[in-house]
């Protein structure tokens, strides 16, 4: 970079390896950056360190057996991942799901969305250098995890849904506890804003960085919050309703700035909307009924292929299944939002300061398990 004050000192670009072991890459993700001073000239994401070959494994597993594997794709929102697989197979087979199971699914998915956004909120602030919020976020997430634990017996990898319904009915008193939690979180959320959103340092730190246009977002196949922050009003729950989302009233938060701050606010607003959905779903929850529909004992979808997409916390989560009429998929493909959203990172990092790097990477909200599949 030619400067008006040429000193004659020889400078050179430096290649810096960020990751795979680095505190703010959220897992084993590696970023090779070429920096000139503290300005990033080029950034090359390198991934695959957590590649477990889920798609290959799935080809040798029956449909029900794949469900626990989906837990481990995006381990921060296992419920949504469970759902997308079940939803794909159910679509393929034309199965109908009992009412109660649909309610349970929506409830756990929305709770999981809240949990996932809370983790994002905490870790993002951690990236930015504030330690406190992380623990507050985890305190509230803990309640959700405990509720899930009661429901499914696991804290992180729930393996809760089944093709045709859910595995377990809500234990007695669970719905009341969930209601209690929703009310609690509703009253707690404003404190999040008090703690962080109003902070001058925080605002000036992430305003106007990592900005891209709607066109960029569409070109790079961005979805979820990454797309909505550019002004596109699009939420699959609203626009292509699946499950019973069409029964609930909620808004889709949209921003137009396309920067890190707008993504921050959108995620917090999504928590509010999830709370709205939860309130309605918990109120309308049918006490009676089956949680498993009538499904063939051996799940053999017909020959054909299916692609479904749903709104996961990180964006558009899709599953493609090519079936040959057997009990195992011929081809199982996950459209992972983290993986696709991450593609815009090199473009966003070009020419920015090193200290913005983590803020931008964090705002994409990736889960490396999902990036690497």
């Amino acid at each position: 970079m030619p400067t008006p004050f040429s000193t004659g000192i020889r400078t050179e670009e430096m290649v810096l390896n960020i990751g795979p072991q680095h505190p703010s890459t959220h897992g084993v993700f590696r970023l090779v950056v070429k920096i000139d001073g503290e300005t990033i000239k080029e950034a090359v994401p390198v991934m695959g360190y957590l590649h477990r070959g889920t798609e290959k494994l799935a080809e040798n597993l029956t449909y029900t057996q794949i469900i626990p594997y989906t837990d481990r794709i995006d381990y921060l929102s296992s419920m949504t991942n469970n759902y997308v697989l079940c939803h794909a197979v159910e679509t393929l087979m034309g199965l109908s799901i009992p009412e109660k199971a649909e309610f349970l699914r929506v409830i756990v998915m929305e709770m999981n969305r809240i949990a996932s956004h809370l983790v994002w909120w905490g870790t993002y602030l951690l990236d930015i250098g504030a330690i406190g919020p992380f623990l507050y976020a985890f305190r509230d997430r803990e309640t959700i995890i405990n509720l899930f634990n009661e429901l499914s017996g696991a804290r992180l990898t729930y393996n809760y849904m089944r093709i045709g319904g859910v595995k377990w009915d809500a234990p007695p008193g669970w719905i009341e506890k969930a209601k209690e939690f929703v009310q609690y979180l509703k009253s707690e959320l404003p404190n999040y804003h008090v703690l962080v959103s109003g902070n001058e340092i925080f605002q000036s730190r992430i305003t106007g960085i990592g900005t891209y246009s709607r066109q960029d977002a569409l070109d790079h196949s961005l979805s979820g919050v990454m797309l909505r922050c550019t002004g596109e009003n699009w939420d699959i729950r609203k626009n292509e309703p699946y499950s019973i989302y069409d029964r609930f009233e909620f808004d889709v938060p949209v921003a137009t700035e396309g920067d890190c701050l707008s993504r921050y606010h959108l995620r917090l607003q999504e928590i509010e909307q999830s709370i709205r959905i939860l309130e309605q779903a918990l109120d309308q929850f049918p006490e009676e009924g089956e949680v498993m529909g009538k499904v063939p004992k051996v799940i053999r979808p017909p020959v054909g292929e299916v692609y479904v997409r749903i709104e996961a916390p990180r964006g558009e989560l899709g599953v493609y299944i090519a079936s040959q009429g057997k009990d195992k998929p011929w081809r199982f493909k996950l459209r992972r939002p983290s993986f696709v959203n991450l593609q815009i990172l090199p473009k966003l990092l070009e020419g920015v300061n090193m200290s913005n790097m983590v803020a931008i990477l964090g705002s994409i909200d990736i889960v490396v398990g999902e990036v690497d599949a």
Partner: protein
Amino acid sequence: MSEEKRKPTPEEKAAAAAVARAKAKAAKEAREAQANAAESDTGEPNGEGRADAPQAEPPIEKRKPTPEEKAAAAAAAMAKAKAAKEAREAANGTTSDADPDAKAKAAAAAKAKAAAAAAAKAKAAREANAGETSDAGMDEDAKAKAAAAAKAKAAAAAKAKAAAAIKSNTGASSVEPTAEEAPPSKNQPYLDRYVQILTERFGKESIEDSYINRLSKEVPTLLIKNEHWHGIAQFLKEEPALQFDYLSNLHGVDYEDRMEVYYHFYSYEHHHSLAVKVKTTRENASVSSVTDIWAGADWNERETFDLLGIDFPGHPNLVRIMMPDEWIGHPLRKDYEPFDEGV
């Protein structure tokens, strides 16, 4: 579906099979099928009975007829054993997949025997899946026939059924025939329009096939000729009437005799979607890259290249993305063998 439930299955199956065998004196193939059938049809109280599946599982091409044969044989056995209740249960197990077509057959079946069962089936049969038709339809159809056959003589009937099963199954492997029978899809006008616009511009030969994929939320699907793909892709995005500005998904599938790359597009402008499939050979798998059109195709193409070995000419940086750079082979190929056994 639990483990405990699964265990009793083999005995019951065996019992059912034995009854059937004794009574029907069916041919050898029919007998094989019986075991399977009992497993899948009487499975309701017994659990999945997966334990038997591997042994009895014939190779891919032969596999499809099996359920039907099974069903037929099992039904025969059941009819003989006068296990009407079981038959009903079995019917229920499959009805959810049945479709109008199946209903008709089921009605016929009802005449022959289990009227009550068929009624239940017909009721349960809702907006059904095309592909499912033949499977489920065959089941019932087979049962009905089996009932009749049991009265006459079993062996010949079983053979006929098996033949029928094979016939209808070949039909099932393609989705279109049944799709035509059903009322036209809500997305049919979209598909017609896409096809019309594309043929106007690129000629008829550019599109190999077009249909509504009823299994996949009725998405209009086009099968595009490989050599026309890049031009069409460009057109799909830029043509004002189409404007597929968003590439939702891109991946490859290995069908053993061919490779396919599957694209799912969405237009935020017009709010319509489209699935595109492009075929290529396994040996020289190559589909032109669309990264210059949708930047979001970049990593997806790299992943497809990495895992399936499909080349994307025109991609700026087509290197492995998931596997290490020095990896040998493409793991998602069906004939993939790990190079290093130790790994």
